[in-house]
């Protein structure tokens, strides 16, 4: 277990290993850090992220909570108000609704309502997203439900290196952070992770592929599909810039505008449904700030307006945007 923590030089790992090793290092580094949630102890979390933590750090720091999400978050808020650095886990994002009150009504407002007399340095981690045959209640995206809320920070990194840097930043953050991990990327995405401790600034997007003819903004599993699509189009002489949002609240206006001003075209791709989604806010911002610099209407590819993806494969596939759909949309926009 400990070997991973001491990693000082770059190694290649999956997203799930990045979450695991970063949490582990945080527990080693700072005894104010606690991990709490359902089945994070002996079972080591349902994705084995915390496997072995209980033996190494003990039940005072790796807490198998009762099955009650409102209090998982609420008790973590109290710990944070009292100076600890709890990392609360919601087993699947689909089960965060019972904690909605605690996140929106309480955590996001502790600093504000007390005018800084109390603060809430809390991290809530949760796996989200579909494409894993998770059906209605193991597949949802929740970011749009929360990104309306001032006082919250929402992060959704998609690569192992970004997960490490942003999870460290989340733990350092003096305010509540909702940390979203796309579960289809847990084992399917691998990448080089720098050694040693580092953070990535919250609110900074990352240009994952430079290009000149159109800009694509995405995050999560879609980001990796968008990169595939963009690489395919490279062969056809279409140059696509792919921006990984990474941070959903706050959002990086600077990077998006700089890219759009260069390519003059924007495609936004996210898995969460389109109506009222993250893409709506990005579109509005770009329309407000760079309307006259656009050569084509902004396009959005997003989940359909249905309550959730179904269990049957065709229902799931219909819900998820395919890489082919992205290729087509990029091609059309480039041609516009």
């Amino acid at each position, binding site marked *: 277990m400990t070997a991973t923590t001491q990693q000082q030089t770059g190694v290649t790992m999956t997203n799930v290993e990045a979450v695991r090793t970063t949490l582990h290092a945080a527990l080693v580094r700072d005894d104010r850090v606690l991990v709490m949630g359902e089945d994070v102890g002996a079972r080591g979390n349902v994705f084995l992220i915390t496997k072995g933590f209980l033996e190494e750090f003990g039940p005072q720091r790796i807490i198998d909570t*009762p099955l009650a999400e*409102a209090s998982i978050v609420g*008790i973590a808020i109290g*710990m944070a108000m009292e100076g600890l650095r709890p990392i609360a886990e919601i087993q699947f994002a689909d089960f965060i609704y019972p904690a909605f009150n605690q996140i929106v009504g*309480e955590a996001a407002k502790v600093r504000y309502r007390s*005018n*800084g*007399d109390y603060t809430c340095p809390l991290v809530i981690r949760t796996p989200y997203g579909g494409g894993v045959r998770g059906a209605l209640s193991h597949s949802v995206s929740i970011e749009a439900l929360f990104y309306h809320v001032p006082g919250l920070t929402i992060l959704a990194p998609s690569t192992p290196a970004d997960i490490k840097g942003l999870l460290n930043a989340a733990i350092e953050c003096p305010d509540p952070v909702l940390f979203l991990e796309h579960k289809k990327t847990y084992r399917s995405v691998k990448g080089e992770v720098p050694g040693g401790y580092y953070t990535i600034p919250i609110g900074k997007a990352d240009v994952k592929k430079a290009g000149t003819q159109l800009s694509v903004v995405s995050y999560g599993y879609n980001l990796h599909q968008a990169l595939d699509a963009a690489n395919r189009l490279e062969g056809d002489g279409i140059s696509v810039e792919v921006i990984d949002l990474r941070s959903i609240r706050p959002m990086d206006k600077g990077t998006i505008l700089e890219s759009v001003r260069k390519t003059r075209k924007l495609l936004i791709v996210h898995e969460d449904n389109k109506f009222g989604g993250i893409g709506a806010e990005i579109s509005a911002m770009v329309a407000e700030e760079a309307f006259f610099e656009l050569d084509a209407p902004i396009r959005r590819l997003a989940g359909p307006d249905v309550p959730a993806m179904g269990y049957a494969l065709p229902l799931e596939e219909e819900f998820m945007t395919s890489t082919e759909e992205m290729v087509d949309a990029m091609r059309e926009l480039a041609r516009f």
Partner: protein
Amino acid sequence: MAKTTAARGRDLDRGGLSDEQLVAMLRNMLLQRQLDNRGFQLNRQGKIPFALGSEGHEAVQAGAAMAFERGRDVLAPYYRDLGLALGVGMSPFEILSSLFARQTDRSMGRQFPNHYTNHDLGVMSISSIIAGHCTHAVGVAAAFKYRGESGRAVLCTTGEGATSQGEWHESVNYAAVHGLPIVFLVQNNEWAISTPQDMQMKVANVADKAPGYGLPGVVCDGFSPIATYRVMHEALERAHAGGGPTIVEAKCYRFLSHSTDDDDRTYRSRDAIEERRKLDPVPRFEQALIEAGVIDEALAKRLKQDVLRETNEATDAAEAQPYPTAESLYTNVVAGDYKPWQD
């Protein structure tokens, strides 16, 4: 100095409290009554938009505050805890600053009246969301236990209506499972706005729920500060010593409407209230202390004059303070400069 037995006059079972402590409790109760009335007066005068009273809760809160260890314990209050706030060290000026929503209020006029915060005194910031704070109280108790800070405990208060909330249940359950240093004080005033207790729960006492969590549940006479002190002291001492949580239910009554926005004539009879007024804990405790020879009539009068003067001074001082500036709306959203869009 502490007199542990009734030395003079009629017997008073003083719960181990000294004369000085008994007088402090009476003073707290008189001040509560005065400040409470002041809030309603100011509202009628059109000077403040809202007030919410704790009349009928004076004894519970004076007793519980006396059991609270200042500088060690933490209070996770609810919005009807004027007496507890005063009893753990908040000043009438702070209370009035909150009522007037002035700059001198710790939340800088953000919070509704009675939603105090005072980190230095261990008074936690709360929202108006019923029972939401109970989970935070448990988090603080968990932090005490985690850091091995024995001798510290959390006092978490609610009304009886709040015990219907899932978050109250989750809080009590978690605290029980982990044996945390916390006391859940339920101030049962029989009403949740217009909803009576028997529409809220099937059991006769909130404390009857305690065995379901594997916890001790104690009922006390919330019209007696000494009875409440005794039970709260024991419960907090148990928590301090690592003995785990207790549910304490103090039976009291809400003499006033729920708030200045409520009219209780629409759901309860005047007679019922008058019947309970006969047992009003404030004059009753004053009388008991006089009869026991702890105070005399002259001291009782002086205490009342004192709290009136204090209330008047605090009213004038708070009213004279400026409102928070409009620009302050934008501060303390998160640490540092807040912008949802980063340049």
